[in-house]
């Protein structure tokens, strides 16, 4: 007696064969979603109390990063400027702009502006800005071309694999310390060499290895150890 139709043979073979692709597709989809802006917020603009434009202030007016982010060179936190920093200029210019009313209100009432944090690391990660600045990691290496962002967004995924890409090979990203805040910095090439201590470097490989020595970077083993970041 036949329980199943003859077509079952074909269907069962196709199912087994197809299952391989279905499972592979599931894994692929999971990996993609996990790395997508939906999860990481990479490239996502978040609403802010004032539509502050880094592009206007940095490229347009030429203000240095450290004018506002004062503690970036010697603290783990780069620093969010107090309203007074804004008012240094805005007490004089655009004093009636409706856009800036929250700033003036904050100044009048002595209540801080509640900015929405863009680059948010989990609490179990210990991160220090100053060590990165002092070892020659440029601002835009991690934050992207902030000078071209009308509205601030997170440039990188901030996932651990992204951290480790650099921690496992820091020489690929280092630049001379005096270039850290230079938003236009380009890695050296034959036509555009980098000068450090009177030496000329025409490629990143030699410059990077030189800077690793000069700035006394810890070994890869040290800076990829769990407790370097998870303390």
């Amino acid at each position, binding site marked *: 007696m036949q*329980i*199943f139709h003859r077509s*079952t*043979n074909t269907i*069962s073979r196709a199912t087994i064969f197809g299952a391989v692709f279905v499972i592979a597709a599931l894994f692929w989809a999971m*990996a993609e979603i*996990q*790395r997508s802006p939906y999860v990481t917020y990479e490239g996502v603009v978040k609403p802010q109390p004032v539509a502050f434009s880094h592009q206007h202030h940095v490229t347009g007016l030429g203000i240095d990063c450290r004018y506002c982010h004062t503690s970036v060179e010697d603290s783990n936190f780069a620093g969010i400027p107090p309203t007074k920093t804004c008012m240094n200029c805005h007490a004089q210019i655009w004093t009636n702009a409706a856009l800036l009313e929250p700033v003036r209100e904050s100044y009048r009432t002595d209540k801080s502006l509640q900015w929405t944090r863009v680059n948010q690391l989990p609490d179990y990660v210990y991160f220090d800005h100053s060590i990165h600045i002092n070892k020659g990691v440029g601002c835009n290496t991690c934050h992207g071309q902030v000078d071209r962002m009308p509205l601030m967004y997170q440039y990188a*995924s901030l*996932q*651990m*694999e992204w951290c*480790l*890409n650099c921690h496992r090979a820091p020489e690929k990203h280092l630049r001379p310390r005096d270039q850290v805040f230079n938003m236009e910095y380009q890695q050296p090439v034959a036509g555009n060499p980098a000068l450090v201590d009177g030496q000329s470097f025409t490629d990143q490989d030699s410059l990077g290895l030189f800077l690793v020595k000069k700035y006394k970077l810890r070994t890869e083993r040290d800076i990829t150890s769990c407790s370097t970041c998870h303390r």
Partner: protein
Amino acid sequence: MDDRTDDVTVGSAPVIEPGYTFATVTDKISAIVLTRPTSVAWLFGFGVAFLLTMMMLYAIGYLFVRGVGIWGVNIPVGWGFAIVNFVWWIGIGHAGTLISAILLLLRQSWRNSINRFAEAMTLFAVACAGLFPVLHLGRPWLGYWLFPYPNTMKYWPQFRSPLVWDVFAVSTYFTISLMFWFIGLIPDLATLRDRSGNRAAQIIYGILAMGWRGSARHWARYETAYLLLAGLATPLVLSVHTVVSFDFAISMVPGWHTTIFPPYFVAGAIYSGFAMVLVLAIPIRKFYGLEDFITERHLQNSAKVMLATGLIVAYGYGIEAFMGWYSGNRYDTFLLWNRLHGPYHFWYWMLLVCNIGIPQVLWIRNLRSSPVWLFLISLDILVGMWLERFVIVVVSLHRDFLNSSWGMYYPTRWDWMTYIGTIGMFLALMFLFLRILPAISIFEMRTLLPQAEVKPE
């Protein structure tokens, strides 16, 4: 009478009582699944086991809410019941693979009536074992971190850690055992499909039988696949518990850091595994009237295996004690003293009694063939092997190198609920298995009949 039949019937007892034909063997085994009504005893047994499983799920649910703090583990004893039970269960699983793979390769025909449920026992025991390390993780929902997969952390597990080797050893073991069990079931599933009068059962067994028609080509492929899997499973019998023993042996803790651990763990695993086989086989053959298939011969042979592996285990204890003295290492010497006289000394002595003392009665032939006695001795060995793991885990840890770090371990009610709950889950799965699948391999039993012998030309 030809050679084969002689081989089967010679000696103390036959592997199958005389008077059966192909049809009666199939009838007798498949009837348990197909025609017998579900008995009250089965319902009662399954009900109790199911309730215990629910208790385990409750304990696990509470663990997920509150964390491992509900268990008795703390520094210095960070590995409490969870690891004791893990090693105990995984050890029990070993007999199934030994019976089905190694005895198949060694052409031991007496394996044929006990291999099916011994393999099922292996699977269920490994399932119980696998729960414990995962529950012990602290954040069990991140258990998949144990496997190397392309993750956003760009980090793989620490391959130098024996705990990672464990993940591979146990998951490979489970996979191979499952494949072996399932492939061995296919011809019998086809038998059930063909004999079942119930449409739903026909479809379910039919799907599982994967179109088995019993043609010569099917059988040839089946035999090849089964032998290949037996070859794959054989090294696992030795490797899995070896790797489990590495969890201890690789560390520097006195009482763990010994090279004798791998062979002594493997022997202990087979010891407890055969004890569990007997604990299951003796009631099963009684309640389902299978004394003709699981004969005195099977009981005798299992008892002999237990006696032999028990002596290897005893040798392991002896070497541990000897090295405690011979090494001259103050910590090893203290460990020996602590086992014999320390706060847990009662349990160490109980372990010696259960594992070495009492099982020596198996030298007596009459006891080896008495189901009641064998059942009791097997239970005693299961208790003893559990105590062995308790002594290894807890007694070694509770006295650290510095006496400022000394402590005691007391299991909480949640430890007990989880442990007893896994026994319930194991039994519940066994009850279901007996009711839905043929507990004895029908077609392999038929090959034991004299009629199955190929006549010489």
